[in-house]
């Protein structure tokens, strides 16, 4: 006789469908060993449920606290490997594409400068011509480049942070 262990297991966990229940009931009527097996499962289950009676030692919490207070504080993972790899890629990229990078910085810087001038002129009441005259032409060129590089650097940092965050998963 084939014993339906899967059905017995599902019966123990109350996961039988109505049709499976009928099949199992029919089998159990004629199979003493399966009836015994199901009874043993319930018996052992009850024993295991009852046997969790030992009290937790009163000193346990204090002992754990003592060890935690003595231990060095946990540190967040630095993700240094990802950072190092990213910096290496950036360095190689900059080495080979430096003129293009500067040109990109110039473009971004010009756009950023226009935005900054607009914000200053609307908040301070000065015209953009007055603001332009306050800064020398040469300084403006440097400013555009610095702002552009800062924007690129900021974008790199954001990408890096995302990479480090992903590496924690």
């Amino acid at each position, binding site marked *: 006789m084939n014993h339906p262990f899967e059905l017995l*297991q599902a019966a123990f966990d109350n996961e039988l469908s109505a049709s499976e229940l009928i099949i199992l009931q029919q089998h159990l009527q004629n199979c003493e060993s399966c009836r015994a097996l199901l009874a043993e*499962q319930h018996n*052992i289950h009850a*024993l295991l449920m009852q046997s*969790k009676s*030992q009290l937790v*030692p009163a000193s346990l919490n204090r002992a754990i606290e003592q060890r935690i207070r003595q231990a060095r*504080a*946990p540190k967040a993972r630095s993700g240094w490997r990802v950072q190092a790899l990213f910096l290496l890629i950036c360095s190689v990229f900059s080495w080979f594409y430096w003129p293009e990078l500067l040109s990109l910085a110039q473009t971004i810087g010009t756009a950023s400068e226009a935005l900054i001038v607009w914000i200053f002129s609307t908040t301070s009441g000065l015209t953009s011509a007055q603001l332009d005259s306050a800064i020398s032409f040469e300084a403006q060129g440097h400013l555009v480049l610095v702002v552009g590089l800062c924007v690129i650097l900021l974008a790199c940092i954001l990408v890096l942070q995302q990479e480090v965050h992903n590496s924690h998963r």
Partner: protein
Amino acid sequence: MEPSDEILAQRALSGDSDAFMILVERYQNTIFHVALRMLGDSHDAEDLTQEVFLRCYQSLGRYDPARPFFSWIYRIAVNCCLTVRKRPTASALDEQLVAALATEEPSPEQHVMRDETQALVQTLLGLLPEQDRSIIALRYDAELSYDQIAQILRLPLGTVKTRLFRARQRLADLLKDQAL
């Protein structure tokens, strides 16, 4: 509203050891019971519980708050228990079984008999494979669902159910063998 485990873990990582002590309060009893079930000795279980929390605290940087804290800490607990490997030898088990069964006079109190049977069950648990003991401990001592156990042990749900069923069956068989 009490802060979640995950928030407490984040706070502990940023230096708030009191937040970690709240986690200890939440989990120390179940971790102790799981360790006791797996190791079979109260002193060993106490030492191991301390070790689990210490390891947890120092590894908080590796904990991913996107995942449930309970599955992380129970996984550490189970791994610690498996590392300790305090599984008694066959001869030591025989002695324990004899001691558990040796009742010169039958006890008049029913609860005493039950305690003896429970002691016997605990001893017989030592004969089960470690994986089965882990599942029993997580189910009966930590009172976790099949889903949670599957998550902690990284096993398919069906495997957890089958192993638990078979583990109970092995225990029943061992109990019958001892009664003969």
